[in-house]
C-alpha cells in the first residue's frame, strides 16, 4: 500500500464512521442515556444492524479467503470487570469513546471534558498494567476463541438466529413506538 493510502485510507474510513455515528444520532448524549433508561432504542438498532450486516459480510470474506478474523483475547475476568466499569462510565459520561470523539466535533463541550478524563483513565491503566497482568489478565484466559468454537454451533446458525432475533426484536420495538406515538 502506498504511503498516501496508509494515511488517507484510515482518515476516510474514520470520517465515514464519524459521519454515520452523527447521522445515527448516537453522538447525542441524550440518545445514549435514554437507551439505558429504555426510552429510546436507537443505540441497539444501530449496533444490532451493524453486527448482523457486518457479520454476514465478514463471514463470507473469511470463507472466500479475503480476510481473517481479528478476535480479542477472552480473558474472562478482565473482560467482565472491564465491561462492568465501561457500563458505569458510559452512563455517567453519557458517551462511549468513539461517539464522544464525534460529539466533540458537533459542539459538545462536556464530551471534550470527558475525553480528558479518558486520557487520565488510559494513563492510570498503563500505570497499573504490571499488577493487572500478574493478577487479573491471566484469570480465565481462554485465548482468541469464537462462539462457534466454544459451542460447536456453526456460524450460519448463529447469524440466522441473530438476524431472526434482531428482526423480531426491532419489529416489536417499532410497533410499540408506533403505538406510543398514536396514544
Amino acid at each position, binding site marked *: 500500500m502506498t504511503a498516501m493510502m496508509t494515511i488517507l485510507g484510515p482518515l476516510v474510513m474514520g470520517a465515514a464512521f464519524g459521519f454515520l455515528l452523527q447521522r445515527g444520532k448516537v453522538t447525542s448524549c441524550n440518545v445514549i442515556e435514554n437507551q439505558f433508561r429504555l426510552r429510546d432504542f436507537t443505540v441497539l438498532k444501530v449496533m444490532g444492524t451493524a453486527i448482523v450486516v457486518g457479520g454476514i459480510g465478514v463471514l463470507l470474506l473469511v470463507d472466500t479467503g479475503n480476510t481473517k478474523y481479528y478476535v480479542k483475547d477472552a480473558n474472562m475476568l478482565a473482560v467482565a470487570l472491564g465491561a462492568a466499569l465501561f457500563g458505569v*462510565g458510559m452512563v455517567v459520561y453519557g458517551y*462511549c469513546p468513539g461517539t464522544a470523539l464525534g460529539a466533540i466535533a458537533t459542539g459538545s463541550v462536556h464530551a471534550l471534558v470527558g475525553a480528558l478524563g479518558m*486520557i487520565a483513565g488510559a494513563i492510570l491503566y498503563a500505570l497499573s498494567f504490571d499488577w493487572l497482568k500478574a493478577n487479573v489478565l491471566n484469570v480465565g484466559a481462554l485465548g482468541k476463541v469464537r462462539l462457534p468454537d466454544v459451542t460447536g454451533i456453526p456460524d450460519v446458525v448463529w447469524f440466522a438466529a441473530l438476524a431472526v432475533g434482531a428482526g423480531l426484536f426491532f419489529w416489536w420495538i417499532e410497533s410499540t413506538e408506533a403505538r406510543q406515538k398514536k396514544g
Partner: protein
Amino acid sequence: MTTITESYVREAPRTARIDWSPYLVGAGIGLLSWVAFGVFGDPLGVTTAYSRIASLFAVPVIGPEAVAQNSYWKSMPLKWDYGVWFLVGIPFGAFVSAVISGTWRLELVPDVWKERFGPSVAKRFAAAFLGGIVIMYGARLAGGCTSGHGISGGLQLALSSWLFLAVMFATGLAVSALMFRAR
C-alpha cells in the same frame, strides 16, 4: 454561554433534524466493516489508538522516563498507524454531518442530565471527567470499547466481545436505574 445553549435547545431539539433511519446507519457501519476487514485488515476500533495517543499526554504528567519504562506503552507505543488516523477521521466526519444537517450546536449540559441534576455546568463537567476515567480504564481492561468489542468483535462472534456486550449493558441498565430513579 448557558443561556445561549438553552435558547438553542428550545428552538429545536438537538437530534430533531437528522432523519436517517438507525437501521440504514447500522447497515452502513456493517458495510464499513466489510471494507475494514477486506481492504485494510484492520477492524473498526477506537481505544487502542486512544491509549497510544494518551502516552503523549502522560509525558508531562509522569515524566518521559516513566513513559518510556512503562511496560504497557512498550507493548503499545505511540505510532501514527491505521488506528490513530482512523481516530482523527471520526470528529472530521461527525463535524461535516452536523454542519450539513444543521445540528451543530454548543452543548454544555445535555437535556437528560439537566432534567435530573439541574443546569450546573461544573457538576456535569465533573461527572463527564470521572465517567471518562472509568470508561477508558474499563475499555483497556476489557481490551476494547463499543466499536472494537461491541461491533467489530460482536460481528466476529468473539466470545470476549459477547461477554463484554452482556456485562456492559447489564451494568449500564443498573447504574442508569440508580442514577435516574424517581426522587
